[in-house]
């Protein structure tokens, strides 16, 4: 891993969220997964109207509430208090997942343990024998949204690659991921495999490849 010694500046968590946010056009219906993806909403200005969906039947979420203005009946799928924008609406769980499973969401952004260059995603369990693995709505979102983007660190804490030629962890969905945003790069999943769209400042393609188990490509 000698490549790790090269000088470059990874994207911060905030910048990662900003990178995703910058690519979401007005008018999209978007579900942001629990964890890092939730922060994406903070970087979409309110006057660029993007309609955020939460699995528990909330459509049109706004920013987090001020502490003295919490509505106890309004939470998101991560069980955080949220606000509702003018134009927001409520529905029951089957209708909420009809939005997801019926292909009505323009985009879902999820975290992941691994993404393969055929678009497979593993984000719910790190072992076949996980104690009580918890899947939540991840499989519905991954299989149902029009586009699935992943937002995650480029490598795991132990340094192992998360962009892989084949997922070793249990799958969430097959051939579902369209794009991956990491702290090192933005990578499209194409018929050729992973295509690098941009990289963290100072990072070379070779250096990125060294941190990536799957083969990377440059845009044609």
């Amino acid at each position, binding site marked *: 891993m000698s490549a790790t010694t090269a000088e470059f500046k990874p994207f911060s968590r905030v910048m990662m969220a900003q990178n995703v946010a910058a690519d979401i056009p*007005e008018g999209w219906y978007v579900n942001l997964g629990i964890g890092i993806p939730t922060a994406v909403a903070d970087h979409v200005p309110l006057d660029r109207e993007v*309609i955020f969906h939460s699995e528990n039947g909330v459509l049109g979420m706004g920013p987090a509430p001020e502490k003295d203005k919490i509505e106890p009946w309004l939470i998101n799928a991560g069980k955080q208090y949220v606000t509702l924008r003018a*134009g927001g609406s409520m529905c029951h769980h089957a209708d909420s997942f009809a939005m*997801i499973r*019926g292909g009505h969401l323009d985009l879902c952004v999820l975290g992941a343990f691994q993404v393969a260059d055929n678009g497979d995603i593993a984000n719910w369990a790190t072992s076949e024998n996980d104690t009580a693995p918890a899947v939540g709505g991840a499989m519905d979102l991954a299989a149902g949204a029009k586009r699935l983007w992943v937002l995650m660190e480029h490598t795991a804490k132990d340094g192992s690659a998360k962009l892989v030629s084949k997922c070793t962890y249990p799958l969430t969905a097959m051939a579902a991921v369209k794009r991956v945003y990491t702290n090192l790069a933005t990578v499209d999943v194409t018929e050729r495999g992973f295509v690098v769209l941009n990289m963290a400042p100072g990072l070379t393609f070779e250096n990125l490849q060294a941190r990536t188990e799957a083969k990377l490509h440059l845009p044609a």
Partner: protein
Amino acid sequence: MINKIVQTMADAMADIKDGSTVLVSGFGSVGQPNVLIDGLIEQGAKDLTIAANNAGSGHVGLARLMELGRVRRIICSFPRSSDPVVFETLYRAGKIELEIVPQGTLAERIRAAGAGVPAFFTATGVGTKMAVGKEHREINGRTYILEDALFGDLGLVEAWEADRWGNLTYKLAGRNFNPIVAMASKLTVVQTQHIRELGDIHPDHIVTPGIFVDRVLHVPYGDPGGF
């Protein structure tokens, strides 16, 4: 700013292609998007498949669309109506295909299309002509048949209220097929009696969230007439 409200019928009907499957809401004339049906007549698309509860009445609306030779096939539960002369004439002449579907199966097939369910089992129609050629399966001691989802390329909807995000409410029995037609259609076009400011419809009272709606045309025609 998202604004699904269109100003003209031409905008409402833009880019509707020949060969489209069109889901048309309404039960009798209540909750039926009559003005949009007239807009579709004007727009000119042909070789259409129409799914609706009825097959038109008199020489207006769906009946007129059929009379003009623009409908290849109709999927409905009840082709009879107070005056089904156009449909019956075409049908007897072999100039229109008919697929009869039990009303609940029709509703469930449309809802399934909106919900990502490509096929489902149902007890309705077992042992009848409706079951001929369909997959049968015994589940927990009862026999069911498999029905597939019914998708619309275009959905025509009538709402009571709408806002610029496309959130909709309906009035009383005007709801009927409208919410599921909106869910199941690639392009959902709405005529609405009232336009509301964003936020004026209570979030708990919105029946069709704007995610299922593409275009909204303001058509304040008042109460439905006869059937």
